[in-house]
């Protein structure tokens, strides 16, 4: 062998590579910085924070797991309705509601995942499509429980930790969602750097090879599905607690599509895409839909088509692509010296 022996070095270098670096907190800080722009933007910033959590949960499935689902809002909606129904019946403590929403969503994702993960591709897409339509219909019909098409009213969120009241300006809401976001972000980021996280990516890359190195593909993906469902439930519960309302759309197909779009815009499989997607989407929507709503749809659709055709990695992919090419140029000029 003429190769250089790097005994010990390879192991050390590899161990360092996946550590959390301070710069990775920047997107989170960007969201936290929203109040600087003015208090009137707090509700928007809160909505962004909630959707980032939702988007992170979808990224686990779609980006890292390679499982394309158009029914993820089932779990968001379940989280929202669980927390909302509890609250409307007197159990309005936000953290309890959060836990309850997460639990119900987790159970549902276990059941649904066990079914849906047996298939892939178009069939899986269709199963998830059916599941979201089914759930929305059920929510629509169960008017006594959910308020049907008019949505669930009477949600009254008690003060967070007994101290922070949910004020009209949305300060508590904002702080609350950002805190939850920070926890979820850390959890997802660290999870994807564990052996489990890597095995998920391996399954996505080459399912056959994964089973041929002894990975139990089905159960790993199911575990991922449950985690993703749970986090979506958290986002939904937050939504209902802060807006003090649950819309029938929280469990609808349109929302599933929207969150998928947000993820694709930001860039799937890169965690930070789940930050930038909702930020760009929701801000753009806020600006554009002040005009004709059709206008917003037109530009949204065009943006999606352009991203898919020319920047499939989303904004983050585009950024890393540009980053790589300038490094390459730098290296080239170094070599010529």
């Amino acid at each position: 062998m003429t190769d250089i022996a790097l005994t010990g070095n390879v192991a050390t270098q590899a161990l360092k590579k996946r550590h959390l670096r301070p710069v990775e907190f920047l997107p989170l800080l960007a969201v936290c910085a929203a109040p600087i722009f003015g208090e009137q933007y707090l509700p928007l910033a809160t909505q962004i924070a909630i959707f980032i959590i939702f988007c992170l949960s979808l990224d686990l499935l779609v980006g890292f797991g390679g499982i394309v689902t158009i029914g993820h809002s089932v779990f968001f909606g379940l989280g929202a309705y669980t927390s909302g129904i509890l609250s409307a019946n007197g159990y309005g403590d936000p953290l309890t509601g959060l836990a309850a929403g997460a639990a119900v969503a987790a159970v549902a994702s276990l059941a649904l995942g066990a079914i849906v993960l047996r298939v892939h591709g178009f069939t899986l897409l269709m199963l998830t499509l059916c599941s979201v339509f089914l759930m929305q219909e059920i929510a629509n019909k169960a008017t006594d429980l959910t308020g049907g098409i008019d949505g669930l009213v009477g949600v009254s969120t008690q003060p967070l930790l007994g101290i922070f009241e949910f004020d009209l300006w949305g300060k508590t809401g904002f702080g609350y969602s950002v805190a939850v976001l920070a926890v979820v972000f850390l959890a997802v980021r660290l999870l994807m750097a564990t052996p489990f996280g890597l095995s998920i990516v391996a399954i996505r890359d080459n399912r056959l090879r994964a089973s041929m190195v002894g990975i139990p593909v089905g159960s790993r993906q199911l575990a991922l599905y449950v985690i993703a469902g749970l986090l979506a439930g958290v986002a939904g519960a937050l939504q209902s607690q802060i807006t003090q309302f649950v819309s029938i759309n929280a469990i609808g197909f349109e929302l599933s599509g929207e969150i998928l779009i947000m993820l694709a815009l930001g860039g799937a499989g890169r965690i930070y895409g789940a930050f930038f997607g909702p930020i760009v989407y929701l801000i753009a929507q806020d600006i554009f839909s002040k005009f004709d709503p059709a206008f917003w749809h037109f530009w949204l659709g065009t943006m999606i088509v352009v991203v898919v055709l020319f920047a499939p990695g989303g904004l983050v992919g585009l950024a890393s692509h540009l980053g790589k090419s300038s490094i390459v140029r730098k290296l080239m000029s170094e070599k010529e010296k």
Partner: protein
Amino acid sequence: MEYSHFALLTDEGMIEKDMAKANVTQSSALRVAGLSKSFGDFKAVTDVSFSLSKGERRALIGPNGAGKTTLVNLLTGAFTPTDGTIWLGGKDVTSLPAHLRIQEGLARTFQITNLFNSLTVLENIALAGAERKGEGWHMFRKNAFSTRALEQAERVMDLIGLTRDAFIEVSDLPYGRQRLVELGIALALDPKILVLDEPAAGLPSEDHDIILAALDALPKDLAVLMIEHDIELVFRFASHVTVLAEGKVVSDGSGEFVKNDPKVREVYLGESTR
């Protein structure tokens, strides 16, 4: 290289099943008896028996369509046999699913490179090693790999000459080095039996030396079954050759024996005159 059995050829050119049983059970890493596989009316593999002892290097050759890949798929558990039995290290694994045969010490490489494309060489190999030891479920580790898995990966890469590519994404590697990563993944699975499906497939003959060098470096107590078309590679590597044609074993013995066996010439030459 020690054999604990030798091939006795009957007039029809089939291996006697009796002698295969006799001395072999104790030290055989892999044993196959009466293995058959039919797809409807098509008999892909018929009544194949042989065994591999610890450290034995055997090549499986035969014309196209002879059933070699089917045989490999039967061994690894991708296909269920229509008839026959498979033993790994003395344990009957005929009905054991594929991912559990790995736990019994079987590892394979693929004819078409099958890697985790977005991961680096190190990650591909260390992942295999980590999964083999049941570390894949860990969700609360700080790092993607335990030190043990990384050090094992390092040893494997060192053995077959991949260390300098450790941090390169496998999709960025030239094909020849990707074939090496295939081998590395299989080695990281701590196998007792290694099945190589055309390790040099798709490589120009100049690059065959890379593969040969890696094969030479394999641990001496590892049993290796290699499917290959490249006769030169076969005779340099294998001490024992089995010839398969139309799903049946046609010849079995040392390289020299098989080279001169008229049955083998008939199979190959008969093939080319059609």
